[in-house]
């Protein structure tokens, strides 16, 4: 902090009196826009501004242009006025804070890789500005009498330098803690979210906006994903309630067979990215008459079968985005899990597995099935609404492992193809998507593709390497070349 102030003082000495006045005025205007922050956060944010000004001027940006880029208008009113907004959790999110324990927290991460190394000073400023566009992200989890909820917090979001494996627990206990964190490492910007805040689709909108803002601060001409845009009506809605009523069903699967190996103390034990040619993956799926999701799912079933012993059913959860079904724009959770189940003994041939999985997935993704599942979730929430949180919490924590985690072997979440505006594409290398480990399940997989590159990420909760070895062999067996990267 002192280092930043020294550099700023040095910069100020070099400036003309007009520019000096311009910067002093800018600092004052910033100060008046940070009224709700604690003195510590206010100082930190002003230092963000000074650090940004120093950096831009050092890179040859004219002081007037630097002041324009870092205008106080970017802050909006999020740090200056008492906020009235608060958000009850959506239907799917209600379970997450109840099930949090010392070793369990539903966290996922979305990362974007730029073509140049990240400048932390500008990324911090971009993060400060981006919260204006997403007020419901600038919240903390609070305990109500019946349910948790999200309440406005007045905090500077802190950018972190990545220091460990992805998807570590997010500290939600301390005052002003937000249910997400943003970090950087080399060329990578990562946003990790506690699942109660949003799902993969909502998180992607946040990451794109943050990246666009960062690129704007770097001087690129990007007009899409503006932070000054007013949040759309419906972005914070619980759209589970918009689904038409149906007869409730679902949540009745039996215990699943999981891969061999002991769950490690460190969670996740390893993260691996299988980087594939998206077109080759697409063609391989089409050649077998199925979608990419079904094709990858069948590979995961085979890999599960090879890395587990004993008899039983392999059950893989596939989250289904419900937004297209009702034309939703919500940034809250709006997806449901379909569980696809096949006995281990029948996971022997891709050719016989694919039609079966395609049929099961199509059935699970059918509108009726989705509406029935959503109705079940809504009914569950309604039936628990009069039970105090203090009673619900220990009971849910106790049974969540048995009914929530024991029923699936692993998860495959396919976020699909990421689309970006033309102006952003030259700066972006790739994306990846990491699902956090979830208790008893020892593997979780996330798939995302961008510009001809698909990244299948495997998150491990055991040191047993048989799953990734089997998956690698299967990919080679179907003629897909891959590059492997990840954590130690």
């Amino acid at each position, binding site marked *: 902090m002192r280092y930043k102030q020294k550099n700023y003082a040095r910069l100020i000495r070099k400036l003309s009196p007009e520019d000096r006045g311009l910067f002093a005025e800018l600092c004052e205007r910033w100060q008046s826009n940070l009224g*709700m922050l*604690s003195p510590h956060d206010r100082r930190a944010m002003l230092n963000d501004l000074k650090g940004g000004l120093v950096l831009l001027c050092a890179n040859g940006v004219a002081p007037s242009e630097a002041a324009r880029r870092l205008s106080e208008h970017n802050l909006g009113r999020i740090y200056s006025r*008492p906020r*009235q907004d*608060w958000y*009850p959790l959506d239907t799917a999110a209600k379970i997450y*804070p109840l099930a*949090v*324990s*010392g070793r369990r*927290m539903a966290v996922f991460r979305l990362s974007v890789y730029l073509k140049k190394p990240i400048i932390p000073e500008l990324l911090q400023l971009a993060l400060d500005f981006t919260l204006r566009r997403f007020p419901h992200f600038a919240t*903390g*989890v*609070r*305990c*109500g*009498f*019946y*349910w*948790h*909820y999200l*309440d406005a917090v*007045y905090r500077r979001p802190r950018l972190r330098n*990545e*220091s*460990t*494996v*992805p998807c570590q627990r997010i500290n*939600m*206990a*301390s*005052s002003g803690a937000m249910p997400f964190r943003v970090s950087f*490492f*080399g060329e*990578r910007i990562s946003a990790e979210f506690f699942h109660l805040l949003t799902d993969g689709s909502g998180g992607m909108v946040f990451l794109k906006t943050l990246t666009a803002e960062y690129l704007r601060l770097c001087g690129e001409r990007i007009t899409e994903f503006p932070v000054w845009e007013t949040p759309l009506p419906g972005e914070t809605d619980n759209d589970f309630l918009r689904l038409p009523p149906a007869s409730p069903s679902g949540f009745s699967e039996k215990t699943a067979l999981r891969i061999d190996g002991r769950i490690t*103390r*460190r969670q996740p034990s390893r*993260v*691996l*990215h299988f980087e594939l040619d998206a077109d080759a993956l697409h063609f391989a799926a089409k050649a077998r008459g199925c979608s990419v999701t079904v094709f990858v799912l069948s590979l995961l079933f085979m890999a599960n079968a090879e890395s587990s012993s004993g008899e039983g059913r392999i059950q893989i959860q596939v989250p289904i985005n419900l937004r297209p079904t009702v034309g939703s724009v919500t940034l809250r959770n709006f997806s449901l899990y379909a569980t696809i189940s096949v006995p281990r003994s029948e996971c022997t041939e891709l050719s016989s597995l694919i039609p079966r999985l395609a049929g099961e997935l199509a059935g699970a993704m059918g509108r009726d099935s989705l509406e029935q599942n959503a109705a079940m979730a809504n009914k569950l929430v309604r039936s628990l*609404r*009069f039970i105090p949180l203090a009673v619900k919490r220990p009971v849910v924590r106790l049974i969540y492992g048995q009914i929530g985690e024991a029923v699936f072997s692993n998860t495959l979440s396919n976020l699909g193809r990421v689309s970006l505006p033309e102006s952003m594409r030259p700066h972006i290398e790739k994306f990846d998507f990491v699902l956090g480990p979830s208790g008893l399940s020892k593997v979780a997989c996330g798939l995302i593709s961008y510009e001809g590159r698909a990244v299948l990420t495997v998150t491990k909760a055991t040191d047993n*390497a048989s799953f*990734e*070895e089997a998956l*690698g062999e299967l990919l080679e067996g179907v003629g897909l070349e891959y*590059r*492997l*990267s*990840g*954590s*130690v």
Partner: protein
Amino acid sequence: MDVRIVYPIKKHRRTTFEILRQWLIILFIIGGAVCVICDLCIPGVPFSLCVLGGEWLFYRTFLHRAHIEARFASHFAQTVLWCCGYLFLLTLIFGKDWAGFVLPIIGFSLVIAMGIFFVADLFRRKLSPLPLLSVSAAGLLTAVLLLILDSFRWPTVVLLSVSVGMLTVVGLFSIGPLGRELKKRFHR
């Protein structure tokens, strides 16, 4: 498998606190069980309740990790309330009549501490008056109960006045946000 490392390399080490916490919990469980067994074998004052109560108090104060919303003010208030509960337990076990004197002293100290905490950052804390309101209301209720059930003592009167005073402070500064706060906390 040839893996290109793209994440920082950091060995997972448990902190001293985590190790200490684990050993203390094991020690407490064994100690508590031994005390209960001894207590069942030896007739007399059930001293194992004091041990178990003390262990619980220590656990709640120093070892328990809340995962959601553990702000300093609420943790402090909860700790003091657990202390009061423990004192009350000791009174029940040993049958001495000092809880009626000590509890109001702890109670009004807590109410005053919460009041100072509230006023110290009035601009922001007036938006969430519920911690002070609930502690003051509990203090008022305790004082009234003690006045009805127990004898008339000065700490009870101080607790009563301090609680009423703090409720007035909440009423003066936070009557608007209070309705909203209650709506949030009790939404279904």
